């Protein structure tokens, strides 16, 4: 008879859950993790990772199409959509196996099935599918601390409910059997623009409809406008301040009724629709109502140490509210178990969570946008540096992009950094470290950035904010 009593049980093995489990185990807690579908959760099975694999195929395809620009020749450049999808699935599978290995290595017990919390300290797991070798099955389990890490799922808006054939969510969009000739993407957040970018690169006629006045609504307006121009140049049609009011499915296509900001209606016929109107927390069927766990607009309410209002029950990641990002979930999980251990970790500062979007061109940001800083009545100094002034960018053939930094005029604190262009998702971390260490403009100016790199633009943007820019 397997042991059913643990110090910590984590419900959900997404990037938040499994990292939490490893950290809990490192701290000496006897730890179990419950999963019903895939180790690694959405992130590495249906989200972050497989989409990056798809986008990589699209990127290489794009370079091959433009081989001439680099003095190369590539003829009869084409793609096999199913092979592209197959590669993406193989990448996910490899990482999925990796999570299983990490659980074994860290002596985390995997329990397979659908979990519900009967009472603080008690988790019942009902059967659901078949788990990996070595996983415990359905039954009743005890734990002093229960951490909910059940993640989120696509939001469904009335009138545009996905049917998974003609109207997709990210699940279907990730495994298309062919590239649709035309595509309507509803929503221009990270998921929407990444799929728009992928399908456009592979030749789809793509239209994005965004209800807000700006695409990439959480990004700095200047960066979003820059990205919009780049998308439009690639042939993506973008309608902002507009909404899809109706979808008529007919045969192998959909006719969408779109209403613009002035109430003008138009219709658009496409082969497929992707609904990317956000995600909602998986708070159902966990027994939260019965336990009296407080929720707010579809997510669980937590404090700075991820405690819910019910002692012994914690929540982390997407289910505990925005920003719904894997790295936010991971960090919350670590803070949560370190607090349980009594290590008094600092609560997470949400302003220090970077965000990355892997469309073409890439977008990366951290901290306050210029508008948000002004809303807080902070006097700011803004610095900018365009990719056209950077040697490495020109050598790469990627001279379109912008780095923008925002400083507190009074204290010199770096409040935010926003970038659009090649590889910026790999660059942003420099600013994130700087912000975490509370550097001011002075330390950034004293830091030596290697030449020739794209990162030099990060320093130039800082210099620009203080009227000392060099290469422009």
């Amino acid at each position, binding site marked *: 008879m397997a042991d059913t009593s643990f110090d910590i049980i984590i419900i959900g093995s997404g990037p938040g859950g499994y990292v939490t489990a490893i950290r809990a185990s*490192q*701290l*000496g807690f006897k730890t179990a993790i419950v999963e019903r579908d895939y180790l690694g959760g959405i992130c590495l099975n249906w989200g972050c990772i497989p989409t990056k694999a798809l986008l990589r195929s699209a990127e290489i395809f794009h370079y091959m199409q433009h081989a001439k620009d680099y003095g190369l020749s590539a003829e009869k450049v084409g793609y096999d959509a199913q092979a592209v999808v197959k590669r993406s699935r193989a990448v996910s599978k490899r990482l999925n196996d990796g999570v299983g290995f990490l659980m074994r290595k860290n002596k985390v017990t995997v329990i397979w099935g659908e979990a519900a919390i009967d009472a603080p300290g008690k988790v019942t797991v009902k059967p659901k599918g078949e788990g990996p070798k070595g996983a415990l099955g359905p039954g009743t389990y005890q734990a002093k601390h229960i951490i909910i890490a059940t993640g989120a799922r696509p939001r469904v808006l009335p009138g545009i409910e996905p049917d998974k054939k003609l109207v997709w969510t990210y699940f279907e969009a990730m495994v298309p059997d062919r590239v649709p000739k035309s595509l309507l993407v509803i929503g221009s957040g990270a998921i929407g623009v990444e799929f728009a970018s992928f399908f456009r690169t592979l030749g789809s006629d793509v239209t994005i409809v965004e209800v807000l006045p700006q695409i990439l609504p959480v990004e700095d307006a200047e960066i979003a406008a820059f990205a919009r121009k780049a998308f439009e140049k690639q042939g993506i049609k973008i309608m902002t301040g507009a909404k899809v009011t109706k979808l008529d499915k007919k045969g192998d296509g959909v006719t969408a009724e779109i209403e613009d900001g002035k109430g003008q209606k138009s219709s658009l016929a496409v082969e497929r629709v992707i609904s990317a109107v956000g995600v909602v927390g998986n708070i159902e069927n966990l027994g939260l109502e019965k336990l009296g766990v407080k929720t707010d607009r579809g997510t669980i309410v937590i404090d700075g140490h991820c405690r819910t209002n019910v002692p012994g029950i914690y929540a982390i990641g997407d289910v505990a509210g925005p920003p719904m990002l894997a790295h936010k979930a991971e960090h919350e999980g670590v803070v949560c178990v370190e607090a349980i*251990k009594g290590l*008094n970790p600092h609560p997470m500062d949400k302003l220090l969570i970077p965000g990355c979007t892997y469309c073409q061109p890439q977008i990366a940001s951290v901290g306050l946008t210029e508008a948000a800083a002004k809303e807080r009545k902070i006097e700011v100094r803004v610095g900018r540096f365009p990719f056209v002034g950077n040697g490495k960018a020109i050598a790469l053939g990627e001279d379109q992009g912008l780095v923008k930094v925002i400083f507190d005029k009074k204290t010199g*604190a770096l409040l935010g950094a926003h970038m659009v262009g090649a590889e910026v998702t790999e660059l942003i971390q420099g600013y994130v470290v700087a912000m975490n*260490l509370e*550097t*001011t403009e002075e330390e950034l100016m004293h830091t030596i950035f290697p030449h020739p790199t794209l990162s030099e633009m990060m320093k130039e943007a800082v210099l620009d904010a203080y009227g000392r820019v060099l290469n422009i």
Partner: protein
Amino acid sequence: MPINILMPALSPTMEKGNLAKWLKKEGEKVKPGDVIAEIETDKATMEVEAVDEGVLAKIVVPEGTADVPVNQLIAVLAGEGEDVKAAAAQAGAGAAPKAAPAPKPSPPPAQAAPAPAAKPAAPPPPPPAQPIVVPPAAQPAKPATDGHGRVFSSPLARRLAKEVGIDIARIAGSGPHGRVIARDVEAAKGGAALKAPAAAPAGATVPAIAPSMSDQQIRALYEEGSYEVVPHDGMRRTIAQRLTASVQTIPHFYLTVDCAIGKLLTAREEINATAPKDKEGKAAYRLSVNDFVIKALALALQRVPEANVSWTEGGMLKHKHSDIGVAVALPAGLITPIVRNAEAKSLSAISNEVKDLVARARARKLKPHEYQGGTSSVSNLGMYGIKDFTAVINPPQSTILAVGAGEERAVVRDGKIEAAQMMSVTMSCDHRAVDGALGAELIGAFKKLIENPVLMVV
């Protein structure tokens, strides 16, 4: 491979510690997170937790051993399935060096296994990927320094602290390793307790100001927008801290006498009237009543030398000179420059020196040696019409004289009521150094001198 457990560094500056207690015996099973031993330093006792699973094969350093250098081998752990005896025998031989997890990330274990401590510290390691075991409760923060007086703090925190005039070394850091970060400065600005200045001699630490209400509580009592918040400057903070310390640590008592100053006023007029004048007709000196008060107090302290003292824990400092502080009001505070050796100076010299000190105090141009120390002080509010009041002693002095307004009062002399020029003075005394009778003797001597200024020339 057996695992060597080394003496952990409980703080970045720790070089050795006492092995207070073993909580596991030889042969006992240990799993990660188990507390295996207690280590004592001069600052704290901390628990050492195991990171690895196994059996405690051998205790190398017995409990109760003092001054065990950091990184010295203290025990050997046999890993899962390993022979405990063999592991014990191997102790210190070829066993894999493995530091007992330090309660805080610490300098890395030296490469050679039982390296005798006092090695020059290696550069700080990157945070270990291995589990780090931190003591359950946050340690009372001491300034995180590198042992050379540098306070670990973020650049932004340093800039903010400078702006509000708070010494960064006095702020308790809440960042990793006690690093002072921006929010700590905000907290200090908002009234969080500051630490005693690092430079204060041991045993003479000034208790931090402990407001009975938090800033938030106080602000909540007033309607939002009905006040403005003026950040404190350094002088305001110094006044608050020093005088709070004075009242909290010095047992004050007060002695009041009325002095007849008719003779003094006459003498003053005569002296001023005969002051030599320069070409522009400017008098070489113009004595104030306060100048007489300074001189009289200086002489009184010479006549009652037991009251010209400073309390220290080690013994009473009996001062030879009368160094008299003069409280000077500034637009945003107050400072007490000192007339040194006032007993030996003439009234005109005192008068001119005070004028110079006051002018430079108002311009904030005094040097520290001009306002630090002193053996007593004079605080005069007579010009504001104050009849009498009590003053707070300016440590390390033992007395301060609060001087009220000179005024005509009805007094009874020889059974008759007559008008006389009178001035009330109140002496505050530090009861640790000056008892009631001694204080009375001192103020009596002062009264005699101020009422008969001619005695000052004796």
